[in-house]
């Protein structure tokens, strides 16, 4: 293998993405080529160095040493008697538990089988005593239990045929009537239950069909707010079907890529990638992700990144339930970078929500004062004119 070919395989070898055959070939080449071996060592150093910057914060060698010392101590420690006993006992406990569970399942299954195989009622005896009966088999069983059938099987007793027919038929008729009445009552109760269920289902259907009519007034009023940035928002989608696997992968990958750009302070590319992710977002789940990302940046004193995240939410997810919080945080972020006009605009939007009106009014007063002071500083030449 020549060095040109080998160098093309080195990247795959460094990240362990070669096939076994390719691995053997490249390793054989590296044994005999010091140039390629040196290249690999250098790339490994770059890889390890970058991993250090990603994983290890600039910190506490003391803390690291303390953790290592504790780890060494733990590794060197021998198990106590009970720890050793438990290690041996653990497999010995699992087997009886599994056997017990299997036995319980078997017994339950057998009981159910026996109940299903219980002898069924004998229709022949019933027909012998009541050849013209208009009753169903359940009623016949009740008659047997009351002693009106099957008496010829008892020792010394009179035959069922000798039972007085008029009294038998009268009792039978009364029982049939009461059974009939009870069936009618049950039917009425069922009808009521069905009607109630239908009513509930209709009510739920109606509420699902009205996505633009939530109960809280501030949510309803929110619909009149125009988005803070001029870009036209994507109209909200109705409750969406589950995302397909591939679309979700592309969405997640684009979102991650966007966050990498934001972390590297490349806001333009981050916003472009984020918009790609939003296009793939069928369920609207990214609204909360951007919201959380914005909070993270704001707590890390990076209001610029936070502003981009919040605007992505407000421009693309106008029905996001946490929109008031997003608007408030956006206003605070604008204030942090000294964009008092933008902050003022956001606080004015917050006045639409009754719960936040007082806070918004207070902040509007503060922003107007700050804006006036900023203008005076500019006129005095203490800050650059914009």
């Amino acid at each position, binding site marked *: 293998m020549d060095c040109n070919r080998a160098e*093309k395989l080195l990247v795959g070898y460094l*990240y362990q993405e070669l096939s076994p055959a390719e691995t053997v070939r490249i390793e054989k080449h590296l044994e005999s080529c010091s140039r390629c071996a040196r290249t690999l060592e*250098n790339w490994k150093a*770059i*890889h390890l*160095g*970058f991993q*250090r910057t990603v994983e290890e914060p600039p910190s506490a060698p003391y803390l690291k040493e303390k953790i290592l010392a504790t780890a060494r101590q733990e590794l060197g420690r021998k198990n106590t008697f009970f720890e050793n006993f438990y290690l041996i006992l653990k497999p010995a406990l699992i087997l009886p538990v599994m056997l017990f569970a299997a036995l319980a399942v078997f017994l339950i299954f057998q009981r159910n089988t026996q109940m299903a195989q219980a002898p069924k009622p004998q229709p022949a005896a019933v027909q012998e005593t009541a050849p013209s009966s208009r009753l169903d088999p359940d009623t016949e069983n009740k008659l047997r239990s009351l002693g009106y059938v099957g008496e010829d099987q008892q020792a010394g007793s009179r035959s069922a045929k000798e039972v007085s027919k008029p009294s038998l038929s009268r009792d039978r008729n009364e029982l049939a009537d009461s059974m009939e009445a009870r069936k009618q009552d049950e039917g009425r109760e069922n009808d009521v239950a069905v009607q109630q269920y239908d009513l509930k289902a209709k009510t739920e259907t109606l509420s699902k069909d009205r996505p633009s009519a939530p109960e809280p007034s501030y949510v309803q009023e929110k619909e009149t707010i125009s988005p803070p940035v001029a870009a036209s928002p994507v109209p909200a989608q109705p409750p969406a079907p589950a995302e397909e696997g591939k679309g979700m992968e*592309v969405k997640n990958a684009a979102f991650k890529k966007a966050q*990498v750009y934001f972390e590297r302070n490349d806001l333009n590319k981050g916003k472009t990638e984020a918009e790609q992710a939003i296009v793939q977002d069928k369920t609207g789940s990214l609204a909360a992700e951007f919201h959380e990302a914005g909070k993270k940046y704001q707590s890390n004193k990076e209001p610029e990144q936070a502003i981009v995240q919040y605007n992505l939410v407000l421009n693309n997810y106008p029905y996001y339930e946490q929109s008031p919080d997003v608007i408030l945080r956006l206003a605070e972020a604008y204030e942090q970078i000294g964009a008092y006009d933008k902050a003022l605009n956001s606080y004015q939007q917050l006045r639409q929500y009754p719960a936040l009106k007082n806070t918004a009014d207070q902040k509007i007063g503060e922003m107007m004062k700050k804006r006036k002071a900023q203008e005076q500083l500019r006129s005095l030449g203490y800050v650059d004119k914009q």
Partner: protein
Amino acid sequence: MKDDHANPEKEYQQRSFDKALQEAVDQLPDEQREVFLLREQMNLPFEEIAKVVGCLPSTAKSRMRYALQSIREKLANRFSMADIA
């Protein structure tokens, strides 16, 4: 790691290297930096990187190779890789 703690000079050298490495990565062309960060920071395999950036896996690996070569050239003047690795 034990050696780093015992050898402050090596630790200082490593920190300088890491800082220079960050700068070298920031100076990479966009396409190479994208692949480099997705591999090193997000730990995506090259198949996935290719899907994300919209190219072939072999193209993604080539961009990574160029990125590593570029970083190595920038750092080789200031650092001996053998000492840092």
